[in-house]
Structure formats: structure tokens, C-alpha cells
């Protein structure tokens, strides 16, 4: 039976720390073989998860959503109103996107997403999160020194632009809708999608103009 006892779990962790191999690969292998032998794990399912997140699910989904929002005002309205339903028009709703909110960058506002308490991320839309998103540094600093963090990512913000940091503390998840760059008025949705980056959808990139990306 599950104990739901913090002290017991803490004790178990202390014992694991003292007795399991320190090397992560060895630790993983030991657990994988035992869980499989005990039928607590279906080895084929591991491959299914890896394939899903390698082949089907990734930021390539999010970029399609943003490009659609840039070219179809009615879609953008739906995205900002009910993002879960809007991404499901592409069949992208799923893992960790049951309560998705899109937040829009404007000339006056820049949005930045973080999870200070763990590593919450809209998986079915953006795929696996980057290592830096899960790092202690990003989690500690994004809420307190967002402009410093953004500067490290090469985003220099005018003081007049308000930074809005979204801390993913519930099961709600956030998608930043970046600004459509200038000078691409005649670009179609497919071409625009190639301008959108994963970092822009988290908020650590702002200017997506093709000129800048070549620089």
C-alpha cells in the first residue's frame, strides 16, 4: 500500500542514495531489468514513448500552430480563447496540454514561461523540454531576474516593454505566441513556420525576423 508518508519516502531515498550505483546508466539498467522481470514494466512501451517523442511530437507542432495564428486572425482568436481546443484542430492536444493557455507577445509585452517547482511543460505541443528549462539556474532566476536571463539568451528588451513571467504551478500550461516579424507580409504559412523556434514559444527568443536569423 502506498504510505503517503513523506518521512518514509525520505528514508527510502536516503537508503537508495547510500546503496544504489551512483552512475546513472548503471542505476537505470538495474531498475529496468528488475522492473521488467517483475512485470512492472513493459519493455516495448519504453520504445513507444521514445518513438513518439522522437518522431511524432516536438516543437514542429508548436510552430505550425503559431504560423496559423499569424495568418488566420480567427484561428488566433480561438487560440487565445481556448488553446487546448485550438491546438486540437491539428490533433496536437494530449500529454500535458489539457489546460493550455496561449499568451501573446506584443510591442508592449514580452512573455516568459517557467516552472519554478519542478519542470512542467506542454509536452504534446512542444515535445521534450530543453535541458536548460529544467536547470536550477533557469528555475531560480526566471521569476526574479527575467531580463538578466533574457539577455543571456540574446534578448535585449527596452525598459518600456513589460515582462510577464508565467510560473506553471498548476496543471495549466503556457504557450508564448511570438510576434509575427516585419517584412514577411507575402510569406505563406509554411514559410512562416520555419521562422518559429522552440525558444520563442517558451519566451527566451523574441525577434524572429529572417534578417536576424541569418545574422
Amino acid at each position: 500500500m502506498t504510505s503517503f508518508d513523506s518521512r518514509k519516502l525520505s528514508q527510502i531515498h536516503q537508503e537508495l542514495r547510500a546503496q544504489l550505483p551512483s552512475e546513472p546508466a548503471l542505476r537505470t539498467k538495474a531498475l529496468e531489468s528488475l522492473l521488467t522481470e517483475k512485470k512492472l514494466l513493459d519493455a516495448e512501451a519504453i520504445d513507444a514513448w521514445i518513438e513518439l517523442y522522437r518522431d511524432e511530437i516536438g516543437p514542429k507542432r508548436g510552430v505550425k500552430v503559431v504560423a496559423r495564428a499569424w495568418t488566420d486572425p480567427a484561428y488566433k482568436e480561438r487560440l487565445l480563447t481556448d488553446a487546448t481546443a485550438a491546438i486540437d484542430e491539428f490533433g496536437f492536444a494530449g500529454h500535458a496540454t489539457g489546460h493550455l493557455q496561449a499568451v501573446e507577445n506584443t510591442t508592449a509585452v514580452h512573455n516568459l514561461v517557467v516552472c519554478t517547482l519542478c519542470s512542467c511543460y506542454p509536452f504534446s505541443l512542444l515535445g521534450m523540454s530543453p535541458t536548460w528549462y529544467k536547470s536550477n539556474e533557469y528555475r531560480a532566476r526566471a521569476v526574479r531576474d527575467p531580463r538578466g536571463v533574457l539577455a543571456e539568451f540574446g534578448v535585449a528588451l527596452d525598459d518600456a516593454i513589460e515582462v510577464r513571467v508565467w510560473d506553471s504551478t498548476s496543471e495549466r500550461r503556457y504557450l508564448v505566441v511570438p510576434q509575427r516579424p516585419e517584412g514577411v507580409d507575402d510569406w505563406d504559412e509554411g514559410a512562416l513556420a520555419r521562422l518559429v523556434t522552440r525558444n520563442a514559444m517558451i519566451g527566451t527568443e523574441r525577434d524572429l525576423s529572417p534578417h536576424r536569423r541569418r545574422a
Partner: protein
Amino acid sequence: MDGVHDLGGREGFGPVRDKDDDQPFHSEWETCAFGMTQSSAGGEGWSIDWFRHCRELIPPVDYLTRPYFDQWITTVAAQMIDAGYLTLDEIKAGVSTFTAQPAYPPKTTEASRAFVKNPKSYAIQSDVSPRYAAGDAVRCRLSGHPGHTRMPGYVRGHLGVVHAHHGAHIMPDASVRGEKRGEHLYTLRFSASELWPEAKASRDRVFVDLWESYFDPA
């Protein structure tokens, strides 16, 4: 709990590293650990909240230093030992000594695909009317409590404004004990100048999702 996992606003951390690293996984053990954590058998009353709490209970030095996916599988191991599905001796010996009867079987390939395609809702019916509406001024409670909570330490005692109400969602502080009940969930907005002593002149804001019992009328 006042754990090291509650990182928001902690000082002394350096620059964000690995900013150009685009790879979700960096070695075979990481991909394996990811798949294992997502698909292993489950115990009675397990939830995302119980998993998060069990990760929070990793010894602080390890929480801050061991690789991310290593923390995931170590958490799975701890949960399974707690539930009685395996023992530390079995892991060390690499040999099963008894048959486990998990409350929920491991996910198959089909179940995994179905899980990934399902936008799971955490909204839940509540007979209680919401106490707050958008625009209300509120103050977060000054203290947290032992066990799991989703109120980050940096908002404690601070003034915020209700930005939006989202209906009732499963309450993590109860879900972590296997109790599934709803409580009204809100997004609160905080001025950076309210939260951080060095940000007195800032117009920036921080938005945090918080349950109703985390704060009071201002």
C-alpha cells in the same frame, strides 16, 4: 514543504547553461529512464502530485546535482519500494524474490499512445462557490505546510491580484495523500516590485496559478 525544489527567486545561481543544446536526450540511459518513468506500473492513489512530492524528497544535494532523468527513475524506485512492489535488496541483487501485485499494470504500447493523445483534464466538480473574482486583491498566506504544496515560497505573504478564475481543479495538497477533491484555482498576478526588494522600479509582473486556500482577501 520547504524543500530545495522550491527554487523560484533563490539567489546565487549563475548563468543559464547549455542554452544551445537542442537535444532532448543525451544518452541511451536518458531515453530509457524517460520511457520507464512514463510507462511503469502504478500504485493505489498515485498521482502526478505524489510523483512530484516523491521527487522533492530526494536528498537536497542530489536534487540539485544529479541528472534530471536519474531523479525520475530514482523517484519511481522509491515509490515502488514504498508500495511494496520491490525491495532495495532486489535492486542490488538484480533478482526478483516475489511477485508484485501492482494496483495498475504497466502501460502497454497501445496504452502509452492513448495516454499521449489524451489531453487529461484536472478540472473537477465543486459544490462550493468561488470566493474570488478577477480584480480582487488578495494576500498569500505567510506559511506553507509540511508535505506537498504548489504554492511557491516566493509569493508567501505577498499581495497579488486575481487575474483569472479557472473553476475547481484537483487540489495537489490533498491529491498527494490519495484524496481526490477539487478546489477553486486562480491565476494571480504579482508586481515584481512587490516580490523582489531589488525590483522597486520594475513594471514587470509574475503570474502564478494558485488554489483558493493558498491566499486570503487583502
